[in-house]
């Protein structure tokens, strides 16, 4: 009974943001980082062999799929350059903020999630590089998550696919704001709380809205709308969103060193 009460007390303290618990987590993150790295370097080949042995059929299918994607992407590279220039021009025209002025830290992803219920990765940079909890993490394709805990040279990033992840978004180039939530799916997000008056249609690009006190600057690409439904009862629009960032290939990420009190 005493242990149960202690657990409940710890849960309560954690919900209230009790500082020493965060410090304890940071210390453990630091302590186990070299241990984890050493063990990972030994066991990663074992893991690769194991996963390769049990996923050979999938690997063949993935190879075929990747070859097809290379063909498609080669064709899209040229179009992409033109589109980038066009996007920059449109951003300037629509007075959308961009993140070019925000200082950044580039980091390598050193580990995946440490439990079956977390959608997270661990990166090899931490508070000594200026990283703090709540800062947004991006790749060239868009938003991938935010910093969940940080130690001196290590940080845990909660991915955008996590069901507890929420971020305010707006439609690029159009009025209307909503919230995007992770769905535990590597490619799909859910956008909610758009007013029915919002002109939200398929192929709209959603970007972070950069609300006041949010850690996320405006204009970070989140995803593309794939379907829209309207709920007349709640007077809200909901949309399925295809994630812009490729969550299967997170090797390097960029942390935006924003200064805010709140994440989301």
């Amino acid at each position, binding site marked *: 009974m005493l*242990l*149960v009460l*202690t*657990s*409940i*007390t*710890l*849960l309560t*303290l*954690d*919900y209230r943001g009790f500082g020493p*618990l965060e410090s*304890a*987590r940071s210390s*453990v*993150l630091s302590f*186990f980082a070299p*241990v*984890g790295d*050493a*063990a*990972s370097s*030994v*066991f*990663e080949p*074992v*893991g690769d062999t*194991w*996963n390769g042995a*049990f996923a050979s059929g999938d690997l063949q299918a993935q190879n075929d799929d990747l070859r097809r994607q290379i063909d498609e992407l080669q064709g899209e590279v040229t179009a992409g350059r033109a589109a980038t220039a066009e996007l920059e021009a449109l951003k300037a025209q629509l007075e959308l903020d961009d993140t070019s002025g925000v200082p950044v830290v580039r980091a390598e992803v050193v*580990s*995946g*999630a*440490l*439990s*079956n*219920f*977390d*959608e*997270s990765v661990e990166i090899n940079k931490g508070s000594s590089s200026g990283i703090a909890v709540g800062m947004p993490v991006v790749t060239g394709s868009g938003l991938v998550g935010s910093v*969940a*805990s940080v130690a001196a040279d290590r940080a*845990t990033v*909660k991915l955008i696919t*996590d*069901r*507890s992840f929420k971020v305010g978004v707006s439609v690029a180039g159009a009025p209307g704001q909503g919230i995007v939530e*992770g769905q*535990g799916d590597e490619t799909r997000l859910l956008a909610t709380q758009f007013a029915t008056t919002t002109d939200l249609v398929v192929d709209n690009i959603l970007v972070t809205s950069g609300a006041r006190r949010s850690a996320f600057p405006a204009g970070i690409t989140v995803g593309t709308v794939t379907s829209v439904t309207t709920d007349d009862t709640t007077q809200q629009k909901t949309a399925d969103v295809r994630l812009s960032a490729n969550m299967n290939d997170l090797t390097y990420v960029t942390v935006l060193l924003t200064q805010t009190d709140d994440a989301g």
Partner: protein
Amino acid sequence: MTAKSVARVALVIISAAVLQRGVFSQVTVAGVQGDILLLLALAAGIALGPERGAIIGFVAGLTFDLFVYSPFGLRALVFCLVGFVAGRYQTSVTRSSRWRLMFTVFVGSVLGVTALALVGWVLGVRNMLNERLVLVALVVAAINAVLAPLAVGALRWAWERPRDATPYGAVTYGR
């Protein structure tokens, strides 16, 4: 409990945490990691009784809580209960074998993972109760069942029994 036992139990738990951090995050089955700290809670209950199971489960859960960003104390609460319930169940068992141990750990792991997801969901951790829960529970249970004899052996080594004490459980495993 002697200082030697405390040191040995701490060593077992830290070793398990290192294995969880370094090995089980790399080697997955169907994308699911083993949960060796849940195994420790179950093994402690089975090998050492309900009270010790609850204590070791609590410490193992607390250790795991330090690694992840889910609410601090969630695993401590669930693993503590898992260790206690496993110990209570074990006191009712009069005959046993290695297979029965593995089966007990399998069922306990399924219940433990499910309890973790349910308590997490109640506390607002929405990502725990999802469509992968059954797969996660079964894979974790299978891995834990295979490793159960090792975990029981490690904990019996760690928690030395006083010479004049009665056995922790009515049965022994490994035959």
